[in-house]
């Protein structure tokens, strides 16, 4: 088996052991069953605990399969967890860019809005939390498409003259987004609206969502359609900050 990674085999063995066990197991029971030192077994269990595949009973210290395993096949991240993690970073992004902020999670090939911060200009606005944005026609959606191998639909809905409606044009755009690490929307969904978005990366490099700003084309982009460097930098900086948050502690009340 060329290229087989030993620690993954060991992790799989521990998961199978826990799945077969009648109840939670002690560290020593696990390490002796899979013939590893306690230290090695503990390291693997801790990592599996971090990614949510193993839980540890708080009272007895015994190990059991984690809720994250059952959730495989569901979403990548709890959308409310993602909102709680992003809130403290999304607010300053809105304040500093002067634009409205959205956080999205993937839904099929599209993007579902899970958090929205108003543009700080005292105008009446409406948050579209829960709305689904088209994947191929928005900066947020394109970020998700770029980092998730979903089949691009055969028929791409036409919104404006700028919407990418051919598969080849969209594929080229997604390649560009993967390379540069951010996406821009130039009136592709609504003629006068632009967007700048970046991926939210969780444990193991998995992109679990996207964050971005949206607003009038002339505020976000220069006349050539290039994102204003200051705004782009703020979006990327914010996405990195949320990413750090996603890979550290769990949310507190």
């Amino acid at each position, binding site marked *: 088996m060329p290229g087989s990674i030993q620690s993954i085999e060991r992790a799989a063995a521990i998961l199978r052991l826990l799945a077969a066990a009648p109840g939670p197991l002690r560290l020593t029971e696990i390490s002796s069953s899979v013939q590893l030192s306690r230290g090695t077994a503990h390291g693997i269990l801790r990592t599996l605990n971090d990614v949510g595949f193993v839980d540890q009973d708080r009272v007895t210290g015994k190990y059991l399969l984690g*809720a994250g395993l059952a959730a495989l096949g569901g979403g990548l991240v709890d959308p409310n967890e993602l909102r*709680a993690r992003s809130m403290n970073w999304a607010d300053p992004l809105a*304040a500093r860019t002067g634009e409205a902020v959205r956080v999205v999670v993937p839904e099929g090939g599209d993007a579902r809005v899970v958090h929205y*911060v108003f543009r*700080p200009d005292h105008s009446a606005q409406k948050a579209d939390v829960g709305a689904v944005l088209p994947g191929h026609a928005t900066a947020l959606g394109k970020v998700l498409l770029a980092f998730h191998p979903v089949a691009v639909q055969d028929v791409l809905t036409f919104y404006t003259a700028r919407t990418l409606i051919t598969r080849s044009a969209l594929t080229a755009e997604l390649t560009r987004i993967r390379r540069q690490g951010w996406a821009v929307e130039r009136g592709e969904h609504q003629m006068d609206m632009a967007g700048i978005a970046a991926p939210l990366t969780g444990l193991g490099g998995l992109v679990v969502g996207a964050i971005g700003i949206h607003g009038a084309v002339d505020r976000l982009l220069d006349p050539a359609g290039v994102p204003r460097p200051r705004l782009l930098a703020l979006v990327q900086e914010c996405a990195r900050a949320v990413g750090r948050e996603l890979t550290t502690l769990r949310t*507190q*009340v």
Partner: protein
Amino acid sequence: MKPRFVMAIDQGTTSTRSILFDHGGQLVAVAQLEHHQYFPKPGWLEHDAEEIWRNVDKVVNRVLGDVGATATDIAAVGIANQRETIVIWERKTGKPVRRAIVWQDTRTDAMVEEMLRAPGAEQIPQLSGLPLSSYFSAPKLRWMLDETPGLRERAQRGEVLFGTMESWLIWNLTGGPDGGAHVTDVTNASRTMLMNIRTLEWDSHLLDFFGIPEAILPEIRGSLETYGTGRGPLQGVPIAAALGDQQAALFGQTCFSAGEAKCTYGTGSFLLLNTGTELVASTHGLLTTVAYQIAGEPAHYALEGSIAITGSLVQWFRDGLGLIGSAAEIETLARTVDDNGGCYIVPAFYGLFAPHWRPEARGVIAGLTSYITKGHLARAVLESTGWQTREVLDAMNADSSLRLKALKVDGGMTSDNLLMQFVADVLDVPVVRPMVAETVSLGAGYAAGLAVGYWSDLEGLRRNWHLAAEWLPEMDEERRESEFRNWTYAVQLTLDWTSKVGNATTRVKSR
């Protein structure tokens, strides 16, 4: 060169932070240090005031260093602090005589029980605006004077000084033994239970009742006025504001006028309603407290209702029941069902607080049937925070003629959209969240900046307040009122529990 920033020092129960704000009210830099929590006996909680002062010095230096600023860049310093916590220190050396007694400390519960029967006790709420309770400073101060050998005599001779946390910090910031100002701001003084809530002066009846020598007390000053200037890294910077933390949050939310209110949703929650320059004495179990006072102007008052168990019920749901992995997941679980299924949770873990004040109550899960799933329970957990807010607001409406137009919210639980929508639904007013989450620090910064003219007026500060999110009421009236009736029935079920079955905690211990 014009100063670039104002500095807030937020001295909280678990940590001390220094934050710089710019002219737009935006957070520029923050430094934070936690301090030790001492639990010498069950129910006791103490802080080392010297450690806290050292931490202030460190976070001030650190935050200045982070942005390469010096004292000349700072227009003013404002303090927001944990309320009711007390320190006594030596005038000559600046050494605390013992560790600070923290607001949550319940060592004086029995003493207060006795005091409640003493002559003159009935006048205390009317004089101080507060119910006689171990929560406030006066019983803690009395305990310290009684239990520290020789301290009362030293107090009478003027050798030692008393203060709440902002007094201790202002005294140290302005020179300590070398001419430090021994002052307290009126919002903090209003939590000692020693100040007359109308005259805003130390009250001789209250001092007599608690047996406190006046020589030990700081001078009561406005919340927005220059108490002195800083030393060391803050050389020459005006120390220009101090507010208790909840009052600071009210100020940071720009609730400057009568009828404006904010609620901070954390493990517990604090709802404060500005009642303007009119003092409203509560007949419905709320506290009357000072909201802020600009030096030379009349004080603004507030009604305060605190809710003991809100976020901590979510923590219990996570850690005690293990039904969710993180606090935010409660919303996900709650959204698996459309309603509470007829289930209500009243979290009277340690009795019911405002507006009921029934210490013998204990919590219930009411309306339990086999239909109820963990999703319904999650709904009931979130809804309990909404209903408790409603109860406090109803009490405020009963006490005052002010009608709330919108509730400004802050704190960790505001990330829960389902909860915030429910609060808007059951209060039948819009719920709005500001863009700057750090309302406590911002309030201290605003107050200090305003005191020295960094900002010109309250209206300028209002323009800095930006809406980050808004929830509008959607529930129809009939449903709102029938649900509230059900909640009220559930509350009735909690009453008298420990007087009927004995104290639950004693039962557990005796097993």
